[in-house]
């Protein structure tokens, strides 16, 4: 019959209307500041630096300041200066590690290229600040987050990374030659 | 009563004059509609509500809108016509209007004894009376008008359809 389509459409909207009062799935709104946020397991936005020991962030950070990520970052938003010890020898540790998150586009390329599993994607998003320049330039101290935190936000991925690192430690010998081959 | 009458007729006369004199076509039409509305008010004063309603329905709601539509479909959409339309023979026009007035209205005016007494009892301007009149003594006139309008409607349909037809014929 003519007009049945309209009636069907009306039924659909009516279902949505009444369903939204009883069915959580039909009212997915989360009232953000009051009712928490809606960060899912798969959410990624800016990178952070991983360290292993909760007591000693600076001592156990994984980054060796190899600057691969700095070179690969498409919008060039990473800035790294390697730390030098007293007699000028490189300390395999970044002295400065800045990410300008106003430029970072969350592409995750830095994570892909890092050979030391030291930079990972974060899922925090409450990053607004009244200071447009300094406030959006995250320093090493802001970026350092523990492996425990990593486990908390992305458990599967963190477990995978841990397993990989453990396997690597068991047979450390051929690692340096692999990239060349 | 008198006050309302004078206000309404003043509005009617002024807007009628403006409708004739204004250069901007849309303005002229709008004032023409104001005239129609004032006329409807006069009808209400004469207790002819139905006539007033029909006046607004037909003249403001249909005829006026149609005029506006016609203006919109012409080139000068904004209504600011720059070129002047020179009125030749304004005198003749005036003479014609006066002649019509004299032949049609004057006899009627002369026949009635002024000042008039209220005639509510003798004239029944209700819808029912109107309908009965249209159905009984004026049936022929009604039918003729209906026929005329139907013919006009059909003509409009034919005019609207024909160009499309010819295009299709060309294609085939």
């Amino acid at each position, binding site marked *: 019959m003519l007009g049945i389509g309209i009636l069907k459409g*009306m039924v659909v909207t009516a279902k949505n*209307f009444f369903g939204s009062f009883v069915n959580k799935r039909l009212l997915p709104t989360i009232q953000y500041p009051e009712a928490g946020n809606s960060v899912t397991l798969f959410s990624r936005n800016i990178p952070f630096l991983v360290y292993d020991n909760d007591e000693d962030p600076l001592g156990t950070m994984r980054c060796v300041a190899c600057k691969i990520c700095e070179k690969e970052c498409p919008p060039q938003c990473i800035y790294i200066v390697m730390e030098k010890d007293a007699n000028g020898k490189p300390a395999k540790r970044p002295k400065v590690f800045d990410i300008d998150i106003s430029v970072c586009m969350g592409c995750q390329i830095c994570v892909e290229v890092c050979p030391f599993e030291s930079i990972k994607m974060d899922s925090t998003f409450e990053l607004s600040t009244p200071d447009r320049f300094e406030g959006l330039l995250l320093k090493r101290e802001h970026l350092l987050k523990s492996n425990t935190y990593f486990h908390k936000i992305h458990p599967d991925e963190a477990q995978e990374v841990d397993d990989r690192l453990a396997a690597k430690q068991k047979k450390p010998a051929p690692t340096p030659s692999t990239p060349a081959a | 009563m008198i006050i309302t009458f004078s206000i309404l007729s003043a509005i009617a006369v002024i807007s009628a004059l403006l409708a004739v004199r204004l250069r901007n076509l849309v*303005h002229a039409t*709008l004032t023409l509609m104001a005239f129609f509305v004032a006329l409807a008010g006069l009808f209400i004063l004469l207790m002819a509500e139905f006539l007033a309603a029909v006046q607004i*329905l037909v003249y403001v*709601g249909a005829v006026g809108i149609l005029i*506006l539509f016609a203006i*919109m479909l012409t080139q000068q959409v904004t209504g600011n016509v720059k070129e002047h339309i020179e009125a030749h023979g304004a005198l003749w026009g005036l003479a014609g209007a006066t002649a019509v007035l004299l032949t049609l209205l004057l006899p009627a005016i002369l026949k009635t004894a002024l000042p008039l007494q209220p005639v509510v009892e003798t004239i029944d301007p209700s819808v029912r009376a109107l309908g009965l009149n249209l159905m009984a003594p004026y049936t022929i006139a009604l039918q003729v008008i209906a026929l005329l309008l139907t013919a006009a409607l059909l003509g409009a349909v034919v005019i609207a359809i024909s160009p499309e037809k010819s295009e299709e014929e060309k294609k085939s």
Partner: protein
Amino acid sequence: MTPINPDQLIVQLTQWALSFLDSYPLVAVLVAILLSTVPLIAVFPGCFAITTWLERKGLARIQNRIGPNRTGPLGILQPAADGIKMLLKEDIVPKTSDRLAHFLAPVVLMVPAFTILSVLPFNRNMIPAAVDTGVILFFALGSVSTLAVFMAGWSSRNKYSLLGGMRAIAQMVSYELPLVLSGVTVIMMTGSLDTTKIVAQQQLSEWIQSSNAGLQCLGQIIGWNVFTPWGFAGFLIFFVASLAEINRCPFDLPEADSEIVAGHLTEYSGFKYALFFMSEYVSAFAINGLSTTLFLGGWSGPNIRPPWSDDPNALLIPGFVWFFAKMFALMLVMIWIRGTLPRLRVDHLMGFAWKFLLPLAIMNIFVGGFYYYAPRWHGIPVVGWPIGFLVMYLSYECIGRLNRGPKTAQRVYHYAS
């Protein structure tokens, strides 16, 4: 002192108040005018506010959102916030606009919108202007709104406005025909243009005046025009045409924001915009009130005589409660439709009015005539009802099928599957 009758309480109060002014006829007339107009001007903007809130909430729920909930409990103060925002906004008039027409347009829209409310009978003896040509007056004044929309569109000197105005004229003039013609059937059956008589005709007075409460209830409902074949079809045609007449979804082409910004409202801001907005809703109420009056029995509804009263016409629940309930129900259906149907295309819009609604409405008039003269059995239209229904249904199907365009080939999507 007449016994208290809840149904007529307001009417009795008014009469009682006016009785003090008997010695000053001129003042009494003025007060009477005020008493019948001020409530209209007070009640309907209130209804408008509630409806905007209902609309926001309803649409939100239909779209799986919550809707306004920050202003007051459940966002009920949202209309007030809107109003304050509107009033505080700067009133911007385009430099090249036609100032007078631009200023007059909202007024020309507003005045008829409120005036037509006055021919609606809200209750027994509660009609602001009892004229015996109520329905035709309603349609006449309602047609003036076309003019206002055109004035708004033309005077803004903005091509979007002008397009909106043009669309509005074309649409309103076309849809006025099915609207009036479906109303004509009711007028024909009642034999009166008087809205109070139309309502009275839809009540079975013998049943209402009987002593059985159930019969009293039923007598207020069974006679509604919508329960007859011509009334049902007429109601549907009237409702659809009224949607177009007041530019509501899915016929809101004059203000189609995806195509022509906001149509005739593009150049309006602040208070004038608020006036437009309000008049639109008030005319929506008015037209819903008229369809309530014509087809849904006006102020009659399930109702019984109060036990303490022996006046056969007394009612327990005031009639205006039912009237407003029905009006709001129709309004909610309009909101529901707005949440469901997408906007029509211009040529479809015109075709729908001229090729579908108009023939149906004309058919409906014939069916109404047949129903009126068809033989009855104990007053029950045993012949008229089924045959009328069948004819209406068949003509609906036939006209619908005739209107089907040529079958188009199944559309092939190359990238989306």
